[in-house]
């Protein structure tokens, strides 16, 4: 069952096509990556999903039915450009934004206490937002996004502005929110975080969906028959015509070989064993980063 179904959405801003028949299907309880280079249309799509703007055509279904205005109380949105009222107290800010989402005040206050505790911000609750460090402000913003326990969470570049320690904590919180039943749509161009937590992705480029599916499947589709070979001794592995060739590479620990068309891994291992003492061989899967760059450039 998909939680969000975006069907053939088109959005145009004075003469510029921002979204060109975009489809997006996010399963219930998934952490779903919405990828794409700057200006590809990610934010436009997000704004349509949380009803800030309207699509020119196409539909957005939530839980299988057409979205209505009241559904936005069920969405938590962390925009890429963070923003809070600077001159009011942390506690007032959180409670105010929680109540905007329809939370009753006592519940908002008790939930806020829990979250402040979790992020070590309790002693800051009566300070003004502008007195907090940038990292702390980010945490406050995160709390305001998730405090009303929305079924759908939309994070636009959630890790930007976080140091590695805090980013790790944030990642744990996001995974926990997923485990508690939220569906998470995650927009980023930080591919490392995509590999770590996203199960599925959609890649948008030039207003169009260019790649879509499970991360593992996509990697399978994009693998290039590359293997990392480790042999004992000082002798170098050399290319073998019709079987494999050595690819110069500094990144991997060992020798990178590319199987020739029609050659099997079995033949390659036999050949290597014959000439060397083979210690290990492993397939090198493409990183999401490589796939991203390849797809975007090939698409340009």
């Amino acid at each position, binding site marked *: 069952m998909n939680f969000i179904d975006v069907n053939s959405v088109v959005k145009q801003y*004075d003469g510029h096509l921002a979204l060109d028949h975009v489809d997006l299907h996010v399963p219930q309880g998934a952490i779903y990556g919405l990828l794409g280079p700057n200006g590809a249309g990610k934010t436009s799509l997000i*704004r349509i999903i*949380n*009803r*800030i*703007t309207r699509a020119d055509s196409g539909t957005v279904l939530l839980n299988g039915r057409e979205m209505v*205005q009241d559904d*936005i*109380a069920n*969405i938590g*949105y962390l*925009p890429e*450009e*963070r*923003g*809070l*009222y*600077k*001159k*009011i107290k942390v506690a007032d800010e959180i409670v105010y*934004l929680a109540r*905007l*989402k329809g939370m009753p005040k006592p519940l908002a206050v008790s939930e806020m206490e829990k979250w402040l505790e979790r992020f070590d911000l309790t002693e800051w609750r009566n300070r003004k937002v502008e007195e907090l460090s940038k990292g702390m402000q980010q945490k406050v*913003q995160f709390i*305001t996004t998730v405090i009303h326990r929305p079924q759908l969470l939309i994070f636009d570049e959630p890790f930007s502005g976080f140091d590695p320690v805090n980013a790790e904590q944030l990642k744990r919180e996001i995974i926990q929110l997923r485990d508690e039943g939220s569906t998470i749509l995650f927009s980023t161009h930080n591919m490392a975080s995509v590999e770590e937590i996203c199960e599925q992705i959609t890649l948008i480029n030039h207003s169009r969906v260019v790649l879509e599916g499970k991360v593992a499947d996509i990697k399978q589709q994009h693998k290039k028959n590359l293997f990392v070979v480790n042999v004992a001794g000082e002798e170098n592995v050399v290319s073998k015509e019709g079987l494999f060739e050595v690819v110069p590479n500094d990144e991997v620990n060992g020798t990178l070989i590319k199987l020739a068309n029609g050659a099997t891994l079995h033949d390659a291992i036999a050949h290597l064993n014959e000439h060397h003492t083979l210690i290990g061989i492993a397939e090198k899967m493409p990183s999401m980063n490589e796939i991203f760059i390849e797809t975007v450039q090939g698409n340009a």
Partner: protein
Amino acid sequence: MTVVGKKSFIIMTILIPFLLILLLFVPIMMKYINDKTDSSEMRIAVVDKSHNYGGAFKDNEKYRFELMSGDSMDKTYDIYKKASGRVDAIMVIPEDVLERQQVDLFSEKTLDEATMMYLNQCLTDTLSKAKIASFQDPDLADKIAQSQVNAVIKSKKWNENGEEQEQSTTIASIIGMVLAFLTYTFVLSYGAMIMNSVVEEKTNRIVEVIVSSCKPMELMMGKIIGVGLVGLTQFAIWVVLIGIAMGVMGFMGVGGDVSSSPEAMGMNMPETESTMASMMSAFASINWLSLLGNFVIYFIGGYLLYASLFAGFGSAVDQASDSSQFTMPIILIMMVALYAGIGCMSNPNGPMAVWCSIIPFTSPVVMMVRLPFDVPWWQLLLSIVLLFATALLCIWISARIYRTGILLYGKKRSFKEIVTWIR
């Protein structure tokens, strides 16, 4: 709204009525302080060539006159030099002063207005007495005194029951002007408040969070209505505080001081007591309930109209400093309204006043000037209907600008571009 919680805002709300009252007293106080502290004497040497009118100038605590015989005198500057440090000025009374009605006053420094007035009064009094005496009619002085007329036109109007009530055109004009000015300042300052709030939310990017929780239209209207209610509350507090302060002052008899202030300030206004009384009855003759009621209606209409424009244009800019491009036209229209209001004061039922009080953009200010002068009900109705219709139209237009504007960043927007957002 974050504005209301600010300490400065609360303090100003409470303080402003007192500041206004203080403003009434400051001139009186200053005059008082000035009189008390300015003990320096003005010494004037009088060279009396007429040998007759030198006594016209009487010494008092401020002025001391020193008579000098005039014949032997050469140049006045030499006398001044000789008497250096002893006198501040030298007055020369010519021989034919009665005919010429003029004396010459020499000094190094420019003399102040009060001195000139005192000298003039002394001379005029003495000369006119001398003239009267020159007719050799013993009763003439009496006759002239009796022929001095100070005509008074007491304006009275009928109320619904045909009872007569005193009214004062001056008071009505002043009240109208005060209300017009209040509307002007309220609308402009609250409009600016809205604009700042819109720009602030846009610059610190919270607007994107907010509009993911409610519709842009709701946000804009919430802002406008919220600030509007703050304004009305503030106004109500002022009315109550001023009422209390006035009551307390009247009770303590301070009111008498206020009424005598024109005299204290050098104006010749006889019978202050009765002026005060007629002022009071003129005050009472004004239908305060309908006046304030209409004020509130026009304030709301004008406020909605301008505040929505401020909100709409505020959403189109990235920084407060860029906003002047759009606020200028709005402020200009308001200024036109204010000047039209001032212009209409002299003829509150003339064609300009009537037109300006019906045109929605000027009516909230101009109608205030006309209100104390009993506006025909059909004009009032037409003006109110037009005002609110225009206000609704402006809200609709601004909502469309706002919806697009708040999420667009980057370049400066032109009026032309904004017009395309309305569609």
